[in-house]
């Protein structure tokens, strides 16, 4: 009995195999169910579809399974593959660029701060290498920025100093020699270094005078202040 127009019936008929397999969307399944209730010929054909489905499953299930050879061959192939994490020539720019794309702006801001500090730290190490301490036998006595500070700063007169960006290593060396000073610690936050101005504890007025002289050398010094 034909209760629907031919086009719609053909559409439903085409969906019967998927309805039998249970892979239709809920909406299509409902359409098919409704049509099956109303169309006896369609329902009879659905029985044929279910028959085909059952025998197709039966046929496939009798095909057996592959031997262990398939898995052995697969894993032999995997073993023969190049290792996943191979060492490649390291492209620093690509490495940084790749990771920067993964970070949030906030993370990038923190990273930039850390990078600046790292550069300042390098500067400090270089300054230490170049300058050393007056009176020491080695002109380039090495200090790590993280090394304990007090052990290198016995009694004496000290100041915190920041150098200008344009000051070269030679300028800084000349400046420190002129003032008989030596870097004993740093860099600290803000790119400041602790320098020893005298081996002895100078009177405050004398120390202030030396600091004032240093402040006047604005090409080399951007900041200087007495400290303990």
């Amino acid at each position: 009995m034909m209760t629907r127009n031919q086009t719609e019936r053909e559409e439903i008929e085409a969906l019967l195999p998927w309805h039998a397999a249970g892979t239709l969307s809920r909406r299509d399944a409902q359409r098919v169910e409704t049509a099956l209730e109303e169309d006896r010929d369609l329902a009879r054909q659905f029985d044929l579809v279910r028959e085909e489905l059952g025998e197709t499953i039966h046929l496939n299930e009798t095909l057996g399974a592959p031997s262990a050879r398939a898995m052995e061959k697969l894993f032999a192939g995997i073993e023969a593959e190049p290792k996943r994490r191979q060492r490649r020539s390291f492209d620093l720019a690509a490495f940084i660029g790749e990771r920067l794309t993964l970070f949030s702006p906030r993370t990038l801001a923190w990273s930039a701060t850390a990078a600046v500090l790292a550069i300042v730290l390098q500067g400090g190490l270089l300054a230490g290498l170049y300058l050393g301490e007056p009176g020491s036998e080695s002109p380039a006595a090495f200090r790590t920025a993280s090394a304990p500070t007090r052990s290198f700063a016995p009694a004496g007169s000290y100041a915190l100093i920041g150098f200008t960006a344009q000051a070269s290593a030679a300028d800084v060396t000349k400046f420190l020699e002129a003032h008989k000073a030596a870097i004993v610690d740093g860099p600290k936050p803000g790119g400041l270094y602790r320098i020893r101005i005298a081996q002895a504890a100078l009177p405050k007025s004398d120390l202030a005078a030396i600091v004032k002289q240093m402040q006047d050398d604005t090409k080399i010094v951007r900041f200087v202040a007495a400290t303990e």
Partner: protein
Amino acid sequence: MQATSDEALIGRIATGDKVAMQVLFARHHVRVYRFVLRLVRDQTKAEDLISEVFLDVWRQAGKFEARSAVSTWLLAIARYKALSALRRRPDEELDDEAAAAIEDPGDDPEVALEKKDKGEILRKCLTALSPEHREIIDLVYYHEKSVEEVAEIVGIPENTVKTRMFYARKRLSELLKAAGVDRGWP
């Protein structure tokens, strides 16, 4: 306890996790093997092909975008490999196989009817279908693939999937009729 999803396994395989590869293989290799075997009709060849399919998964896992189910992806790779293998075989061989599947003197219509084993005849006729028709019937009935998934695996439009399935069933009915089983359709 919930089993690791196929997608999670693929993610681990992409990092070189061989145990994840074993789990995925154990989960899917039989069905993939049967799908390939139905196409190439050669057990040794089918075993070789499934090794190649899963080796491709090992290599390509990092590129899997999860736009389709992992099983659909596996069948698509398997199909490509099976068809490539078939293209390397002479056409006559395929025709002979199809003919042999139908022309079985022990299963002429009368004898078959005497056996009254309609299911057996139906399975014989399913085997005698062309690779194109076998494939779509297996994908829909055995591998439980939706219209959209079959379209993705076979690489044809969804309407063509429905049409091809219809003609595969029609051909099956014709083979059944030739074998003495008239289903009254089409």
